[in-house]
């Protein structure tokens, strides 16, 4: 009798997850045959039977964590179960003989018996004994042959070539998709599901496609097209993401922060702000544009519009931007709801009324709760650049510095442009450096080409 236990695959490994059992209790197994797949923080791998026998009880269900060294199942002698299959196969064969007295086309009448099972119960005379062979014993079990190899600095996920190509073309991260194929292989249908859950192309693009001459005159909102609704989605934590969260928290506190600073050219935005303010007849602030820009950029990067929990990463189906407002009593963060679906003018009106209520302590809970990202702007105080602390359960906050004329080099000429620095604080449990940088890059498109914000 042999015990199957959770192996220790690395110094940092304390537990592993049972992904799937290839065998059921009572199934016979051969030495070297894969019995189950486990997931560690680095790699998915198959555990093989160490001896021939019958899989007895399974003590850890699929999807469940087990500590290193923990008991997963037993392999026992179980002669009876293996022997009982033989008569069944023989019977099936007899049935065929009676049913098909040798006509040419009797192939079609093959009985119901699952042929694969019938065969696996029989002998395999031509198979040479190769106990140490790495070859999988069952024919056609290609699924397990592409054993995952840990890449430097991350796990490698199994995926079909088509799924990888589709992800590449759609600009999706293949490792953010949960695979439904054998051994967790990511297949085309998984990418399709991910695609339909991911944000639709942002409104500015679709709106600019149907371009009509701008209505001369009053209402900039006339052309405004609200973005399509998103969906709530819960993405279970992978072992790798769990480890990142744990380790980085241990090193820097509950939320492992890191900071990315981008320097944006806001010359066009400032000019647009002045023009639109005149057209709308009310004052618009730079911050109102930034709120909309940040909200639209979030639609491109669902993992920034997210929250971290111990079990899963919650991707929010709506974009609610918290605005840090200082009051005599301290900081409040009223929330502009569905900021991605509101025009700049609507956002301006919202912010004005919320800030007013905040200062008078009249905010209701639903007006200061539920943000999915927060913006803190100290530009009015002349702060050029600063870092902000993330407002949980957000995974990012933008610290906006003052927009001011500065000398910059464009086309090898020193020119004076209005510039503004934005520092993004990211929760490393969810947002990795490259993702934060991608977000800031998307934000740049909205801020430096601000017509995207009003179309």
């Amino acid at each position, binding site marked *: 009798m042999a015990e199957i236990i959770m192996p220790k695959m690395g110094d940092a490994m304390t537990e592993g997850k049972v992904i799937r059992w290839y065998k059921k209790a009572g199934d016979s197994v051969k030495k070297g045959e894969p019995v189950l797949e486990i997931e560690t923080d680095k790699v998915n791998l198959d555990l093989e039977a160490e001896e021939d026998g019958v899989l007895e009880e399974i003590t850890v269900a699929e999807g469940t964590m087990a500590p290193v060294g923990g008991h997963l199942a037993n392999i026992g002698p179980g002669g009876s179960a293996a022997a009982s299959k033989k008569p069944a196969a023989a019977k099936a064969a*007899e049935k*065929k003989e009676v049913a098909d007295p040798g006509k040419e086309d009797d*192939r079609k009448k093959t009985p119901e018996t*699952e*042929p694969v099972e019938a065969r696996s119960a029989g002998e395999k005379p031509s198979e040479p004994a190769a106990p140490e062979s790495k070859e999988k014993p069952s024919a*056609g079990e*290609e699924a397990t042959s592409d054993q995952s190899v840990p890449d430097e600095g991350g796990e490698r996920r199994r995926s079909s070539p*088509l799924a990888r190509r589709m992800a590449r073309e759609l600009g999706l991260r293949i490792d953010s998709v949960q695979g439904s194929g054998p051994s967790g292989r990511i*297949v*085309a249908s998984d990418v399709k599901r991910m695609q339909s859950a991911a944000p639709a192309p942002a409104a500015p693009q679709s709106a600019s496609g149907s371009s009509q001459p701008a209505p001369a005159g009053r209402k900039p909102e006339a052309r405004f097209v609200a973005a399509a609704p998103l969906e709530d989605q819960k993405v279970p934590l992978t072992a790798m993401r769990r480890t990142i969260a744990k380790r980085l928290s241990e090193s820097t506190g509950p939320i492992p922060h890191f900071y990315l600073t981008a320097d944006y050219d806001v010359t066009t935005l400032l000019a647009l702000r002045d023009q639109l303010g005149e057209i709308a007849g009310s004052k618009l602030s730079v911050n109102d544009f930034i709120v909309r820009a940040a909200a639209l950029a979030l639609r491109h990067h669902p993992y920034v519009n997210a929250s971290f929990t111990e079990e899963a990463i919650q991707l929010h189906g709506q974009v609610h931007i918290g605005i840090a407002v200082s009051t005599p009593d301290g900081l409040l963060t009223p929330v502009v709801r569905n900021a991605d679906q509101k025009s700049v003018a609507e956002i301006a009106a919202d912010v004005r009324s919320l800030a007013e209520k905040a200062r008078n302590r009249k905010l209701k809970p639903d007006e200061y709760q539920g943000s999915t990202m927060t913006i803190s702007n100290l530009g009015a105080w002349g702060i050029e650049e600063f870092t902000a602390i993330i407002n949980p359960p957000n995974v990012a906050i933008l610290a906006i510095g003052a927009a001011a004329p500065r000398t910059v080099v464009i086309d090898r000429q020193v020119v004076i442009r209005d510039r503004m620095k934005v520092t993004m604080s990211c929760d490393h449990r969810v947002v990795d450096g490259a993702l934060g940088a991608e977000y800031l890059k998307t934000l740049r498109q909205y801020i430096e080409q601000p017509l995207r914000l009003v179309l």
Partner: protein
Amino acid sequence: MPEKTYRDAIREAMMEEMDRDPTVLIMGEDIGIYEGTFRITAGMLKKYGSKRVIDTPIAEAGMVGTAVGMAMLGLRPIVEMMTINFAIVAADQILNHAAKVRYFSGGQVDVPLVIRGPQGAGVQLSAQHSQSFESFYAHFPGLKVLAPGTPADAKGLLKTAIRGKDPVIFLESAALYGLKGEVPDGEEALVPLGQSRVVREGKDVTIVAYSRMMQMSLAVADKLAAEKGIEAEVIDLRTLRPLDMEPVYQSVRKTHRAVVVQEQWKLFGAAAEIAAAISETVFDELDAPVARVTGEDVPMPYARNLELLAVPHEEQVLHAIRKVMYRGED
């Protein structure tokens, strides 16, 4: 169009070509007076006489060697093997002579020779007489290898083979001799060599097969469409060498998954070549590894029940389709 059996279509192809071209002749064991073990040559001795329908001794190497000489000197011999299994006795004549004479002669001498006969299992001929040789012969440059799966292709490919300049291995399926289908007459019957054909259109999965396994795959595809709404595209290779893969690639670009079915053993079989070519050429289109359905890795049993278990059957094709479509046992 008249319906004919696969057997009659082969005879008709030979007789039409013998009528058309006096240099065409046939030789083999028991093909004249006895009219052929599978009655392919029935009536031919009476019609063409013993100079063009030649009963030979049981000496395959001698038959093929004689035929190679005839072909080099301008005749168009057809050699019937009682089963293709017997041609391995003549393997040196086929592989080292027929396949290489043009090359060795610097292109001066052709060998317009057809070696034909039944192969494969399904008629209880046991281990020595039920083998499949397509990958064996298709391995060698200098040969052409055909494996028709319908009466029309049997006739059309054989007529083209007889008219060609190359040595051709024409593999008939013993289990298909009784299969009926529409068969065109005369020149209309000609089928070019080296052209695969989509025999059933579908969008969900590609099944690649030839000969008898193509017929079986078609039956599976029809059943799948009726019962599960899965539309399988079935491609009949018809010719193994030259191998026309383009229709297969086109189909995989559409379905993203492929199952290859062959009667012969799995190791180094035609399905391995096809699966590898798919991976090489349309790798990025694949959503699942190419699946193979093949015969069992045993010498063919004589017992009817065991023979049935040893060659691929419909349930195995269904199982492979479910696997490449990531569908459980539904």
